[in-house]
Structure formats: structure tokens, C-alpha cells
């Protein structure tokens, strides 16, 4: 084991000192941050003006909402229930861009549903929320307690929850951003595995090519040498992962404090608002209505997500490492290695498909199969972890993790056999029969 650690340390340092490793150390987080920033900004798109129809069957709003801005939002009122299909199809409603439903349940469920035909700009969403919320307060408090208590109520009230939905996509199925983010994380995991797995295979092929293997094998057992390589590459991948997490975390903090400060600290275009008024908008204001910010800053539980990402990265790496070791040891030269990478690419392709499947059909039978199949379970687990799992589902994921670890260990024993036989074989013709012969011995 000591020799494996010495070899692992060398492998780690070799990667750490390479230019490409250091470039990716910085470039990777920058690309991720650029993606996050672009994603958040993309959520600011949308129409800049709206005619909003307020369905107020109880007449609570008294056909009046006081606008805080001059442009963009205008309201019309109907004292009746308006079915969403009627709003979608009815000729008399086509002049309106959005329907807001204010019914008697608002005091108990604190929920306001906004159905729009075209996604509103974030500014509009914030203003709509602010204006409707204030009007509700006015109506509620001044009618029951008197106008002098509106200010007091504002300071102690709980904000309303606004649900913005497309009239054609009421359940926001197309915007299951969290699960797609999980898919993206799984994708990042696969990219890491490809990059670092290929490193294992190339390292073995290179040592065979420059004939240092025999020097090493006089001091270490083949299995120790193989484990040293796998551990060294794992360390470098974990180090890079750790740096990425720290840098992305730092970047998100800088976004919050500098680049996206307005979203967090309050500022509404064209509207003069006191900090107190802004506070009344509820937690985060903009951050609540920009799905991008909401996703990255409110919805994700990083404390759960990051340890699980590392956990499932480890099991998936463990399963794939043996494959790359076998390829490296089998190869007579670099061209051989390229040829035998293909089956691994197919498995990676399957893994990516499994993640896609889990995103769209999280509870399907295929997803259940992919969740336990060692070569795809890491990807599926990432999607599930990001979406949020129940305790029983999480326990099942841990069982699939254990299965992957056991299968990985068994694969490593087979890889050890191929490695032992292949490491001193140079310029041989690679055949399947040779592979089976080496696997037997």
C-alpha cells in the first residue's frame, strides 16, 4: 500500500504540474459561472408591458390597484371567477396578457396565481407582486382595523406567494429547472470521468511505450502499481473538483455582492422605494421572481448536494476506472487504446441517456433500472439528489452506491489480471481472445 501511495503522489504531481490541468482548474469554474450568469440574465427576458385582468369575485380589490410605476402595467377587474380555459379561448379576454386570481382563500393560503400568455419581464413580475400585495393589505386592514393600521400590519405580515405560470403550461413542466440542473451536474460528472479515466489509460500506455513499467515492477507488485495510478488520478480529479466547488461558490458570492447586487438588495426600475417597502416585497424580491436566482440561491441545498455529488462521483469513478485500466494495459500502442475507448463511450452515452430519462420520467421502471445499474447509477442519483429525495429513496440510492462499489471492486480484480499480463507486453496485436486469456490468468 505504501508503494501505491508513492505512485499515487507522483501521478497527482504530474497532473498538478501540467499546464492543461491548471488551465482547466480556472477555466472550468469560469465557464460554469458564465453559464450561471447567462442563465440568470436569460430569465430577465420577457415582455415589458402587460394588461392584467384581475378576477376578483369577492370584490376585495374594489376595482383599484395603485400603480407604483408609470409604464408597463395596467389592470382591469372582473368580479367573477374566470376559468383558465375561458381566459385562454374567450374572445373578450384576448386583449389581456395575464390573469390574476384573487379569491377569498387568499387570507388562508397566501397564494396568488398569475397566468400569463407571454412570460413577463422580471421587473413586471416584481411590480405586479408589490402592487397587488399592497392593495390586498390596504383592503384587508383598512376595512377591518382602519387605515391607520396599514403600516403596522405591513411590518408584521407574511408576504404572499405569487405563482407565475404560462397559461399553456400550468404545471411548469417545461421548467423543471432543478432536475435539469441535476442532469447538468451528472453531465459534469461524466465529463470528469472521461477526462480523468482517459488519463489512467494514457498513463499506462505511455509507461509501456517508454518502457519504465519494468523498472517499476521490480519494486512494486502490478496490483500496487495499478492502484497507485487509479488513486493518483482520483486525487487529482477530487482536487480539481474541490477547486471548482470553491471557485464557483466564490463566484456565486461575488455575483450576489457585485454583479447581481440589484437583484438581492432591492431596486425597482423607475420606482422610488424605501428599504422598508422593499423589505415588504418579501424575501429577496427579484431573487424570488427570477427563476435563475431562485434556482441557484434559494432552491438548491448545497449542503446536501455537494457531499452527494462527491459520493456518487467516487462510486462512478471506481466502476469506470477498472475499464480504463484494462484498456491501458491491453493496448500495444496508442492506436489500440483509441479503438477500445469506443465501448466506454457507449456506456457514457447510456449514462447520459439515463440522466435524461430520469429528468423526464423520474419514477419510471427504466429510471429504477438505471438507478441500480452501476454504470448509470451515478448519473441518475445526481438528478434525483438535486430534485430532492425522500429518506426511503435516499436509502435506495445508498444501496445502489454500495452495489457500484462492490461491482467496481470486482472489476478491479479483473483489471488487475489484465494489467499484470499486459503491462510487459509491447507491440502485440490486440485481440479479444488475448483479452480473455489474460482475464483467466
Amino acid at each position: 500500500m505504501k508503494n501505491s501511495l508513492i505512485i499515487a503522489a507522483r501521478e497527482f504531481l504530474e497532473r498538478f504540474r501540467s499546464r492543461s490541468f491548471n488551465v482547466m482548474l480556472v477555466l472550468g469554474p469560469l465557464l460554469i459561472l458564465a453559464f450561471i450568469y447567462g442563465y440568470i440574465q436569460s430569465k430577465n427576458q420577457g415582455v415589458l408591458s402587460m394588461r392584467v385582468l384581475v378576477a376578483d369575485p369577492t370584490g376585495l380589490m374594489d376595482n383599484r390597484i395603485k400603480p407604483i410605476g408609470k409604464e408597463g402595467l395596467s389592470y382591469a377587474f372582473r368580479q367573477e371567477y374566470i376559468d383558465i380555459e375561458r381566459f385562454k379561448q374567450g374572445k373578450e379576454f384576448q386583449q389581456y396578457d395575464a390573469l390574476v386570481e384573487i379569491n377569498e382563500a387568499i387570507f388562508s393560503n397566501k397564494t396568488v396565481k398569475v397566468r400569463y400568455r407571454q412570460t413577463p419581464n422580471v421587473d413586471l413580475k416584481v411590480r405586479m407582486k408589490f402592487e397587488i400585495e399592497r392593495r390586498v393589505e390596504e383592503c384587508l386592514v383598512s376595512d377591518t382595523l382602519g387605515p391607520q393600521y396599514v403600516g403596522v400590519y405591513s411590518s408584521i405580515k407574511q408576504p404572499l406567494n405569487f405563482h407565475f405560470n404560462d397559461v399553456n403550461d400550468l404545471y411548469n413542466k417545461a421548467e423543471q429547472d432543478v432536475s435539469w440542473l441535476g442532469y447538468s451536474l451528472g453531465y459534469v460528472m461524466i465529463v470528469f470521468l472521461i477526462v480523468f479515466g482517459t488519463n489512467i489509460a494514457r498513463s499506462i500506455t505511455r509507461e509501456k511505450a517508454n518502457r519504465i513499467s519494468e523498472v517499476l515492477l521490480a519494486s512494486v507488485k502490478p496490483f500496487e502499481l495499478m492502484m497507485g495510478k487509479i488513486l493518483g488520478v482520483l486525487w487529482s480529479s477530487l482536487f480539481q473538483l474541490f477547486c471548482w466547488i470553491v471557485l464557483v461558490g466564490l463566484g456565486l458570492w461575488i455575483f450576489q455582492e457585485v454583479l447581481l447586487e440589484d437583484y438581492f438588495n432591492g431596486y425597482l426600475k423607475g420606482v422610488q422605494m424605501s428599504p422598508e417597502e422593499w423589505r415588504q416585497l418579501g424575501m429577496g424580491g427579484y431573487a424570488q421572481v427570477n427563476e435563475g436566482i431562485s434556482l441557484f440561491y434559494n432552491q438548491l441545498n448545497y449542503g446536501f448536494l455537494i457531499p452527494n455529488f462527491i459520493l456518487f462521483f467516487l462510486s462512478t469513478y471506481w466502476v469506470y476506472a477498472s475499464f480504463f485500466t484494462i484498456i491501458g494495459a491491453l493496448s500495444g500502442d496508442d492506436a489500440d487504446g483509441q479503438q477500445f475507448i469506443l465501448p466506454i463511450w457507449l456506456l457514457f452515452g447510456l449514462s447520459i441517456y439515463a440522466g435524461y430519462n430520469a429528468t423526464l420520467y423520474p419514477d419510471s421502471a427504466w429510471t429504477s433500472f438505471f438507478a441500480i445499474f452501476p454504470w448509470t447509477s451515478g448519473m441518475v442519483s445526481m438528478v434525483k439528489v438535486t430534485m430532492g429525495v425522500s429518506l426511503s429513496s435516499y436509502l435506495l440510492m445508498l444501496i445502489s452506491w454500495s452495489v457500484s462499489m462492490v461491482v467496481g471492486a470486482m472489476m478491479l480484480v479483473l483489471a488487475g489480471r489484465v494489467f499484470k499480463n499486459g503491462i510487459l507486453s509491447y507491440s502485440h496485436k490486440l485481440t479479444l481472445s488475448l483479452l480473455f486469456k489474460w482475464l483467466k490468468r
Partner: protein
Amino acid sequence: MIELVDIQKSFQNKLALDGVSFTIPKGKVFGLIGPNGAGKTTLIRILNQILSPSSGSVMVQGMPLTASHVRSFGYLPEERGLYREMTVKNHLIFLAKLRGLSGKEAQANVIHWLKKFGISDWENKRIDALSKGMAQKIQFIAAVVHGPEVIILDEPLSGFDPLNIQLILDEIKTFVQQDKTVVFSTHNMQSVDELCDEVALIHQGKLLANDKVADLRSKHRNGDYKIRFRGNAVAFANALWTGFEIIETKELSENYREAVIRKRADQSFNDVFTFLSGSLSLELIEEQIPSMQDVFVKLIAAHHHEE
């Protein structure tokens, strides 16, 4: 003392070593010789536990060979490589640590050897910046940096320039003075003559000969003598009578010749002198002991003849 007992090794259907047994004495230079593909490298890999024998055993001081024995060996393989992107010093420290040295010991030994070979200035250079000769020195240092008691060198002189060959030969002599055992596989028979105390000749996986170099050469004497004399060539031929055969003669100057003769039947060195001294002015009579090169060729040829 390392003892190889009835070593057999086969690869798939090919028998690479067929019942090879011999003993490597402690504190001597042991030559492992044989033509290409004879099985020398396979045998050396078995000694280093890189390969395990199909049957037979290796004993060290009467005990079966273990990993800890192997760790105390030094090994310079025929197929030797270096990590091109590492620095000289880091590379050697890395290999020394794999041989069980602590970081401090490794560092001290590496500095010692670099100084000894006069390449201290190169310690922080990358391997890929070294000349071939320099890289070969590093490879040799890597084999001995941990102070092994048994040093196994597979074709250590191949590709070396004459200066580096001398450097390596001198080091080998120093090891023997320190009572270390050197196992030395080579095609260079001149170096076997110069260095080896004992040899094993392997051919087609079989042991053809195992003896002390001096004894092996002596056993394969042809009864040839080199003679240098002043006098008439006819008188020389007459004087030899029928007891000797003239193999070759060479006129060095007028009436000054050198010849090689081979004895027939039971003639002795004294007979040569007796026959010639009366009629010629003798300057040199020297028995021609065959070189290891001659012995090597003779044994291989004899083996083929038998087959």
C-alpha cells in the same frame, strides 16, 4: 548465494526456460550469457519476481525468494525507461522510495550518486533535456541508488559509449570489492572476460554451461600455441615434425615470423620448446586460451550440431 532450482517457464505454448538450475555465488560477478531470445531476460524477470516460474524455485541463502529479498535487489532492465517530464533528482528519489528508502535517505543517496558520476549540476534538469549518455547514467544510478546487496544488470552496456562503458565496468568492480553480488547479462563477451567470475550460458531456454570463466576457457583449449621466432620458415616446419599442425604463419619482417600451431596427440608445452629451440631463435611461446567469445560460439555451434 542465490540458487535457481529447475526453473521452467512457458508462455502460452512456448517453453521459454526448460529446467534451468545454477547457483549465483555471493560477492562475485555472475555472467548470464546467451544469444538473443535464449531466455536470459525471462530468467532475470523471475529473479525480480516480475514473472513467476511455471515450476521450480529461487532460493536466497537457503530461503525461498520473497518480496523483501527483491526489494533489496537493484535492477537495471534491458527495456529501461524514465519519466521524461520529471527532474533528475525527483525521478531518482521517487524510485529510491519505491525501494523502501525514507525521503531523507533517498535524497542523501541521490546526491551522493549524482556527485560520484559528476552530474550534480543536472539534478534539477528535466529528463527530456538529457543526452542519451546522461540518461543512461541516470538509469544506472536508479538501479543502485538504494545500496542493494544484489545488483542485476540486464545488458547494462548496450547503447553506452566507450566512456560510459568504462564507468559502469569500474562501478561493477567496486561493488564486488564491497562483497556485493552482481548478476550481469550481456552479449559483450569482452566484458565477460574482463569482469565475470562465473557464467551461465543459456540457449533456447536450456542451460548449456555453468562454470567459472577461467575453467570454462581452460576446458575449451584447442592446444594452440602462438610462437614468435627468428629463422627460416622451412626450418620451422621441419622442426615441428609431425607432432604439431601449423594453423597460420605471418612474416613480421625478414626472417622474423609469428605462427600459430596446434598440437596433435599428447604433445605438451615442453615438447614445443624442445622441438623448436635447437633450430630457431625463439622469442615467444604462448598457449592460446580461447576467449569467452570463442567458447560461446563453440558451445552454441556444438549444441546445434547435436540437434
